């Protein structure tokens, strides 16, 4: 569990490295003073259980299905083609 993953793998971007401009932003946070008396905003932002929508499957319209199919880069027999399944 202690293995630290490099940012290019985490981000799926070849050769990705941290940038100086962004590191400067993070340094400000590292050095900031925290006042522990702030209120619990997370509770205020939570969605009420009464507002949760029902978990039901809805059929898409024909036009929606058609556009989704158009967006697939490759299709074979109605299925999305993936280049190769990762092994192991």
């Amino acid at each position, binding site marked *: 569990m202690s293995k630290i993953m490099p940012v290019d793998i985490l981000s*799926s971007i070849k050769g*990705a490295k941290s940038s100086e401009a962004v590191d400067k932003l993070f340094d*400000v946070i590292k050095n900031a003073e925290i006042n522990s008396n702030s209120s619990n905003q997370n509770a205020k932002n939570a969605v009420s259980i009464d507002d*949760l929508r029902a978990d039901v499957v809805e059929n898409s319209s024909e036009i929606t299905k058609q556009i989704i199919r158009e*967006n697939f*880069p490759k299709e074979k027999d109605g299925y999305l083609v993936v280049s190769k399944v990762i092994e192991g």
Partner: protein
Amino acid sequence: MSLIKKIHNQLVAKEFTCTELVKEKLALLKENKYNSVNTVLEDLALEAAAKVDAKIANGEEIGLLEGIPFGIKDVYMVQGTYTSASSDLLKKYKSAYTATAIQKLLDAGAIPMAKENCDSFGHGSSSENTVFGSVKNAINQELVAGGSSGGSAVNVAADYTVFSIGGDTGGSIRQPAGYNKIYGLKPTYGRVSRYGLMAYASSTDTVGPLAKSIEDVAIVMNVMSGKDAKDQTTIASEEIKAEVIASKPEGIKIGYFKNFIENDAIDSKVKADFLATIEKIKSAGYEVQELDFFNADTLVSTYYTLAMAETASNLSRLDGTNYGNRIEDKNLKETYMVTRSENFTEETKRRIVGGNQVLSQGFSDAIYLKGQELRKEIEAAFEADFNKVDIILSPVTPGPVPKIGEVLSNPHAMYLSDAYTVGFSLGQLPTLTCPFGTETGIQVTGAKNKEQTILQFANFLNQVQ
């Protein structure tokens, strides 16, 4: 004067047909010397215009927004149209459905004219981070349009659209509105559904209008607002009333952040102009208080830390398999890597990498979780301030409008240019840019759900300018 009402009256009086109006705007959008448009929605617009003309010809009553041409930032889903987010990855991605806010405008009869150029995925403050070419400022083409809703602001300022729908995460409606001298409203978080808006930073993303008058901002907001089962962060809101906006605000207190104005980073003219506006408000009999607030560096760093973390998470779905242009490689993992490396812009990659850094082991406690704590403090400070005052005024930006080419070369300076907008985003507060007060405008901010109060005060400010 409401441009929407003026055009509505002209359509009803048959001074011109809706098709004639739409054709005129389409010609301007196609000619377009500002790079403000990614896709012109010609067929959709003409089809909708013909329906409005048929109603008028039949003697039927038309609604206020019926036949009014509007633009849509290219981060909103509109069924059957390309929704590129100004990126190579989604350049040919077609929306399968329509965003709730846009659908409400279409239902009201407004005419969609164009998908508008913007910073890719909303990542930028100049509308130069786009694969469709930098958007040019409507007033001076050597200057940037502001970002990320630059195309939307320019189209309104140049009269290509009557209003446009932008998206504001850290200032993306307010700053381009100021740069192009029009109004731009970032509403209270949750007032307008985000369903169908491509997610950048979900906890601060908002949907809002850009327009030439306060009344038009209110008209569009009233149509778009409301709870939506498809976005569970939406909230119920009250109608903004035109007669209240037109009246003089009574018994309210005004505040401004002393440390925004009294520091070395602010341009001297921006400072002088802002303070002159404060004097006019005092002369009109209002009490004005100086307020203390977080320094600009802390606000910018807190915002970008959280926004980058959220965008890294939101954009992880864009791998060429589920969405967008795929570049095949030797296996699925390499395909993801090459697709994302080749199809994201440098600024977007910088933000994804930054986001993954702060969410990763060894960084999350020291930076991300600390950023969350700072945000709570910022929200608490706003709550305390709005117990003292009703309106907070601030410049939109510390400096004047930059030239094209100046911003992209210095990302850190670009992040700092958002110093006065990002705090209100973290507080999820409603904020309106007004096209006066300083070179890049003035922000009028209220407590959550106080859109009517800020529009009313902005209307008063407009009259005392």
